[in-house]
């Protein structure tokens, strides 16, 4: 059984003009010790999914069905207080974009980690401090910097501190939301390496959210490609990257230059992501899809397994795309 099973999760934002369907019937699994990458354009519901799993919805966020089962329990149905004490940070922790504002500027970095330990575990303050220093060491920060404030850390160090924080209570699952987005490529590589090593060392499961497909290729086992709040394609990194079967996924993969391939101009996907208050009927991608026909405009494609095992695609035309035709060639 998978560590986490997300089934049919629906989370909408209430707005004056109607519901924004940010997460709409999303299903996928996170296996123990494996990493799942969530990819997609800005506004496709990636981050909304992360906060849905940790139940950190803003005031106008609402669940409209679905379940998140972890260790046999639907964590969306848990009483709030129990969820806060037992699940948050203890079972699921999160790596935020540390370079930005994830650390409170007026508290010492070390104290912010100690706080998390003391909230969930019955240990003395001294022990929490020494554990925090060990964590600093683990992520490559000098433990002597325990008492410094976030502004005294560089962007890369802040990101390391945020990772240390996420590891503080030995969680089963870590959700990483754009952990390297604000960092330059050198630091990005270091951080990704650190995350990879820690995952191996601690046998952690991870859900990595990013718009950068290369980051997922480097760190994840499987990938969920989201489009307009829905799963477009879901499968192992190998399957999805080598044989992208959803036109959108294919477009995404093709829009990344390949260092080993023949030189060809980098392509972009024409059009814009749809308005999620009134998403297009049928397949949500049809206004941008070169293969769209009558069926695509009216019937919503279900997520189905194509020729490879555990490779799911939500597209009526998957069979055509599968043949390897470059549908995005003009």
């Amino acid at each position, binding site marked *: 059984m998978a560590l986490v099973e997300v089934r049919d999760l629906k989370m909408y934002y209430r707005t004056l003009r109607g519901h924004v369907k940010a997460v709409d019937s999303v299903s996928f699994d996170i296996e123990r010790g494996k990493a799942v990458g969530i990819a997609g354009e800005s506004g496709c519901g990636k981050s909304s999914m992360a*906060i849905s799993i*940790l139940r*950190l919805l803003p*005031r106008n966020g609402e669940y409209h069905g679905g379940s998140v089962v972890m260790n046999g329990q639907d964590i969306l149905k848990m009483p709030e207080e129990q969820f*806060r*004490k037992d*699940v*948050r*940070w*203890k079972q699921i*922790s*999160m790596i*935020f*974009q540390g370079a*930005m*504002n*994830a*650390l*409170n*500027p*007026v*508290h010492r970095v070390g104290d*912010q980690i100690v*706080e*998390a330990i003391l*909230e*969930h575990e019955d240990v003395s303050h001294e022990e929490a401090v020494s554990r925090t220093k060990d964590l600093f060491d683990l992520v490559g920060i000098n433990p002597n910097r325990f008492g*410094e*404030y976030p*502004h*005294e850390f560089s962007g890369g160090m802040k990101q390391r501190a*945020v990772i240390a*924080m996420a590891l503080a209570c030995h969680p089963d699952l870590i959700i990483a939301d754009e952990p390297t987005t604000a960092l330059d490529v050198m630091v990005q590589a270091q951080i990704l390496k650190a995350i990879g090593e820690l995952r191996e060392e601690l046998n952690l499961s991870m859900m990595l959210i990013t718009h950068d497909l290369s980051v997922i290729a480097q760190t994840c086992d499987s990938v969920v490609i989201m489009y307009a709040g829905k799963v477009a394609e879901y499968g192992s990194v190998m399957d999805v990257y080598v044989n992208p079967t959803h036109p959108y996924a294919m477009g995404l993969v093709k829009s990344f230059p390949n260092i080993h391939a023949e030189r060809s101009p980098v392509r972009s996907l024409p059009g814009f992501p749809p308005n999620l208050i009134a998403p297009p009927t049928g397949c949500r991608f049809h206004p941008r899809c070169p293969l769209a026909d009558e069926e695509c405009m009216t019937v919503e494609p279900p997520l189905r397994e194509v020729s490879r095992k555990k490779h799911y695609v939500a597209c009526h035309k998957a069979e055509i795309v599968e043949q390897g035709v470059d549908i995005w060639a003009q």
Partner: protein
Amino acid sequence: MGFRSYVIKRLVYALIVLYVILTLNFVLFRVMPGDPTKMIIDPNFTPEAKAELRSQYGLDDPPLKQYVTYMGNLLKFDMGLSFSTRRPVWSELKERLPNTIKLFLCTFILTSLTGMRLGVKAAANPGSFTDRVVITAGLFTHAVPTFFIQLLMLLLFGYYWPILPIHGTMSAPPPAGGWNIFLDRLWHLVLPVTSNMIVGFGSWALYARNTMTEALGQDYIITARAKGISEKDVLYHHALRSVLPPIVTLLFMSLPGMVSGAVITESIFSWHGVGRYLLDATLQMDYPAAQGAFYLIALAVVISNLLADIAYGLVDPRIRVGAGGAK
């Protein structure tokens, strides 16, 4: 280095500002229209007598000499004699100062605490009933002039339900016994302080609500919630703590405004304090007295700004670094 050099730097700035204010205070009274001597010299005096009096007050000295005398005397808190009472201005101010400080501290502490508590409550539940009541009431009373509310309260509690003392700092004759005197003085504080609270809590509540709403939208609040920190700790330990620097600054910055606000409050409630003294002195063209009162207010402003800077450095770790290195 660090915090101490920061404080020293602020202190030097404060002294410079004080010096400039005192100089302006000197110049202003000399370029103002009207002849101060008219107040003390009978127009029927002979020119010789007039000149004699002028030289007694030092008014015929060259401006530079007057300036030096003025500065020297101020350092000794010698503000000259009041034109109207012929008593030293400083001793007159000294006996009023405790009353003003008392009124002012009570008003200040109660108003800011009440306002901020309500603002935090409103920010924690945006759109709730509490939120709407706090915002509406706060905006309304804030928009109404202070004296209007105070006159209204005078009318209500002095005329329709005469249950509260409406003027003075204590009963005459004062009741016997130390405890009773204390209670009597406290009782006299009720109307001036509540009226100021009604007028003043709104700006605090709105300010606290806005800064808190902004803080609650920050990423580190989501981090704190994700860590499983209880909502109360998120609210006070993370959100309020992070907006404390601007609030503390505002607290101290509002001190001078409240000193001058005392002028109105003290006049309406016939409070024997510095504010009313300033008003009376100005109306009677009592220049030494007005100058002395201005001096005190300027001093209060400079000191509160200095305190604001120091407090800001204490609550915001980032400021200390600005002063040159963390350690």
